[in-house]
């Protein structure tokens, strides 16, 4: 009875996994078909005439002049630069809030940062657009990076880590004559690699995957992110060119899937942390 139940559970789990993975497998399978076969309405997972033309043409930018490589470069750049900035400013702020008791306005700033976690994005979206528009920064990397730096999640995550960081280590460094910056950069940061990687992966995936803001903040063909670009292709000239569209989509998904596979442990940790506020 117990064995039967176990076998049944595993079968259910496998069926569910098949349902969850099928669309992804179908995406890859279609990307290897020519457009004619992709539109034929067949259910074959193995293409009859497998081809990588969709990928080659897509990466060359030959398809309808879509600069797909440029979009990927944009997305990777803003993801990496944005994550770098956020890791730096969030860790500095969190360190001050957690450990530098003589910081000015410490309590009020802390309450404001915490309260901001409840602010829905829709409240800042339009004025943020008008702000960047007024500064002439629409269609620049600045517009695609800076809005993410205001998020308080990272400050909060790191604050929780720093507050439980053993004080003795800092004291020892202070007695050795280290100043605050040296303690932060040479003692605290090197001991925070795991939590920084957690925040880094979470932040990078958030920026790389963000959809609505880059859709409006970068409208020139050169400044599109891959996420917004793929969306526009699916609504425009690529409708029904499923082979090509799926090749582009696979390329777009690849960076996050790789990071997800490698860093899943960290990503999960960030999500769980968000729940135990």
């Amino acid at each position, binding site marked *: 009875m117990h064995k039967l139940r176990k076998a049944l*559970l595993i079968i259910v*789990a496998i069926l569910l*996994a098949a349902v*969850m993975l*099928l*669309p992804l497998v179908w*995406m890859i399978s*279609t990307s290897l078909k020519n457009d004619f076969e*992709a*539109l*034929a309405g067949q*259910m074959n997972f193995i293409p009859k005439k497998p081809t990588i033309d969709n990928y080659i043409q897509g990466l060359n930018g030959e398809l309808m002049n879509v600069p797909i490589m440029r979009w990927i470069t944009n997305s990777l750049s803003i993801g990496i630069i944005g994550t770098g900035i956020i890791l*730096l*400013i*969030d860790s*500095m*702020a969190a360190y001050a809030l957690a450990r*530098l*008791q*003589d*910081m*000015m*306005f410490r309590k009020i*700033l802390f309450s404001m940062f915490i309260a901001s976690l409840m*602010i829905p994005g*829709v*409240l*800042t*979206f*339009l*004025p*943020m*657009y*008008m*702000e960047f528009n007024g500064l002439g920064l629409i269609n620049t990397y600045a517009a695609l990076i800076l*809005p993410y*730096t*205001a998020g308080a999640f990272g400050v909060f995550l790191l604050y929780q880590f720093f507050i439980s960081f053993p004080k003795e280590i800092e004291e020892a460094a202070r007695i050795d004559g280290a100043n*605050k910056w040296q303690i932060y950069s040479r003692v605290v940061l090197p001991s925070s690699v795991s939590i920084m990687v957690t925040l880094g992966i979470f932040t990078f995936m958030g920026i790389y995957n*963000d*959809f*609505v803001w880059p859709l*409006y903040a970068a409208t020139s063909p050169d400044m599109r992110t891959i996420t917004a670009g*793929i*969306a526009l292709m*699916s*609504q425009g000239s690529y409708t*029904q060119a*499923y082979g090509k*569209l*799926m090749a582009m*989509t696979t390329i777009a998904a690849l960076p996050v*899937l790789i*990071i*997800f596979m490698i860093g*899943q442990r960290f990503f*999960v940790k960030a*999500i*769980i942390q968000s*729940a135990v506020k």
Partner: protein
Amino acid sequence: MKPTLKSRISSSLFALPYTLCFAAFLLFPICYGFYISLHDFELLSKEHPFVGLSNYIAIFTPNSYENALFFRGLWATIQFVIFSVPLLIIAGLAIAMLVNALPSKLRGLFRTFYFIPYALSASVMAVIWLMMFDTNAGFLNSMLQKLGGQSIPWLTGTPWAWVSLIITTLWWTIGFNMIIFINALNQVPEDYYEAASIDGASSWSKFIYITLPTIRPVMLFVMITSTIASFNIYAQPFLLTRGGPGDTTRVLLINVLDHAFIRKEVGSASAMAIIMALIIIIISLVQYRLTYGRKEGN
């Protein structure tokens, strides 16, 4: 020992860069948004005359254009919230319990399988499902035809458009709730279950009397995050159904952003965005009170 001014300044400098970003890209936009909502703010025009509360009044004036836009969008959004949130919670918990019931060697593997879609962007998700749902060449209709059934207008018929949006949302985001629930289930002390087993409790009564009460705070968290996420729905109808059929799936956020960027009425759209944000904040506060009240009761 009183800290010196120099020390206080150097300590504050650590928090300065983030505080400036916070001020520039959160506090300022919030204030600016209120300012915009009090003006006739045509996107391309240089003149933005002050109009007081009339953008807000228009939204609440029956039969006005703004009234129809806002409340039809709100109604579509609320329908989506009502359909999706219970499923997101029940399915999330069910999948978490399934994963936890598996032999420990298999748990990590299956957790990853169910979690993968969550790592994808909205547009990758939407493009994949555009192809799955395609009326003529899509995978689902091909399968239905093989099985001798009728094609379904997944994205162009009612109620199928809603069904499709909910299928994609479940597929895309269920991994998040699953992860939260797995973590919560693992926190339930093992001896509670053992004690109940000795008393001869069934699996069902263990679930009702031990599991559910213990994970209640997490349940509330999932309920609120799912409600807020569903309230903010945009990408799925924007990319999959394009608001159709007709205006059925034109949710509030689509209407607000179109009002701002297509009709260029940023002032009026800002008023709508502020009301929408207030609704979301009220939902969060109610949840907060529920959790807080529970703690006080203990």
